[in-house]
């Protein structure tokens, strides 16, 4: 069995705002969500910027009892899942045919606060729900519990490609007839002192801005977010009169099996080709690529080389932008958030810009939609995710 797969729900929260409408308007305006860190103490951080969610009040979404159980990563996932499922009558669907596949988001703020209390303040005990709040499958469980979904539910770990792999696997399950509705994507809330210090030690964080593909790019900027898609079989979605935002066409996955942190152009190119093969598309059918585009020297030049290898002369006519320059690198949530961005690009004919672009880099010869959003009617778009550990996932989406 190979069923067509429709994207029937979208939900998001990020530094660009709560909800798809806020994300869309930020994409159109080229508004940047990166700024000085204000939600945690910065005296021990050498890098002072991040893409924080500043207007989020958990108590407006959850009661006291729920909040005891929810790390911020689960809170963000639930807010986005509620938006994505809004208007879908779950009561009319068999609950065991509805599943959840999310990227595995460690409850970083819960663990960080716990260890700070334990080692810093010499607390003798930790809050009793530290384990179920911190576990990487917590957000997936919370979404299933919140909506009463009894189908397969789990979380997938592949570092910064986690939620892209989650969407890929969820789509395969819908395609294969294993699920009739999948809530997929991911969330991440890692802006805490311990984890930012860990990133700092890798020497890849930018201290001023995220400038993907620009010659003077200086590194990545961490963000927090959730990005959720709802996938359903095309025919069932049509039959129930669902709003279809886009079509999932295919995915390509693979491993560099090389360096732990340095990306491989061959590995990235293999994943892109695999996505095109899975979708049955020729390279010149692609009208837009949402790049992994972290803004590090190595990622961006390697990704450009991979795109050149796959698309050849077509690359001159192919816009490739990095929306991370707007919403930051949202790590475990990146693939989910960027799948929402890519879906909006298709649905709205609106390509998000690459912000912070100042000077072309001969190692990144791309049309990166510099600094200003662009109107373009496109039929097929790719979303790239290339993670530490050489774990690659590429999603192919088509206009509905």
């Amino acid at each position: 069995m190979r069923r067509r797969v429709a994207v029937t729900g979208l939900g998001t929260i990020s530094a660009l705002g709560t909800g798809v409408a806020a994300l869309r308007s930020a994409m159109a305006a080229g508004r940047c969500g990166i700024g000085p860190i204000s939600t945690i103490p910065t005296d021990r951080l050498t890098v002072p910027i991040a893409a924080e969610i500043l207007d989020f009040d958990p108590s407006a979404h959850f009661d006291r009892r729920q909040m005891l159980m929810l790390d911020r990563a689960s809170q963000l996932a639930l807010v986005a899942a509620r938006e994505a499922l809004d208007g879908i009558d779950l009561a009319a669907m068999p609950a065991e045919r509805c599943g959840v596949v999310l990227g595995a988001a460690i409850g970083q703020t819960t663990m960080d606060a716990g260890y700070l209390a334990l080692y810093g303040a010499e607390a003798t005990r930790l809050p009793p729900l530290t384990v179920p709040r911190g576990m990487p499958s917590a957000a997936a469980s919370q979404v299933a519990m919140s909506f009463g979904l009894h189908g397969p539910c789990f979380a997938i770990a592949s570092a910064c490609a986690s939620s892209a792999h989650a969407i890929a696997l969820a789509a395969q399950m819908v395609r294969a007839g294993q699920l009739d509705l999948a809530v997929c994507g991911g969330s991440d809330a890692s802006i805490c002192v311990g984890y930012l210090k860990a990133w700092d030690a890798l020497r890849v964080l930018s201290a001023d801005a995220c400038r993907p593909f620009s010659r003077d790019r200086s590194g990545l900027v961490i963000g927090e977010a959730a990005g959720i898609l709802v996938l359903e079989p095309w025919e069932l979605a049509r039959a129930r009169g669902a709003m279809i935002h886009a079509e999932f066409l295919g995915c390509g996955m693979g491993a560099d099996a090389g360096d732990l942190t340095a990306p491989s152009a061959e590995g990235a190119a293999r994943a892109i080709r695999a996505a095109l093969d899975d979708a049955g598309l020729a390279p010149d059918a692609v009208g837009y690529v949402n790049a992994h585009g972290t803004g590090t020297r190595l990622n961006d030049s390697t990704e450009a080389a991979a795109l050149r290898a796959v698309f050849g002369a077509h690359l001159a006519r192919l816009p490739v932008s990095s929306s991370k320059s707007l919403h930051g690198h949202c790590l475990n949530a990146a693939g989910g958030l960027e799948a929402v961005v890519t879906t909006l690009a298709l649905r709205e004919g609106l390509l998000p810009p690459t912000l912070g672009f100042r000077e072309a880099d001969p190692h990144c010869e791309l049309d990166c939609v510099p600094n200003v959003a662009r109107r373009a009617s496109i039929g097929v778009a790719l979303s790239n995710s290339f993670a530490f550990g050489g774990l690659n996932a590429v999603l192919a989406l088509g206009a509905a």
Partner: protein
Amino acid sequence: MPDVFSDPRCAAILDIVATETGVARAALVPEATLDGLGIPSLDLIHTLFAIETHFDVEIPTVIGREGAEFVTMGDLVGHILATLDRAAA
């Protein structure tokens, strides 16, 4: 079982149980079972944490009964008082 509920420290314990679980204070009698009171294990965990915080003491897990330590309110209060006694000794 000695009448642990006559201990002067019991009032503070029962106040915390009532607050954390939402069960009426008057229903918290020694022979009442946690099941009968409808106190889920998650609420019991929070209650013990709040009591630990209030008395600044670590309440150890009852050896051999991990995950199902207390049947009645008497069991619960007795274990907490014994812990407080040990801490004061």
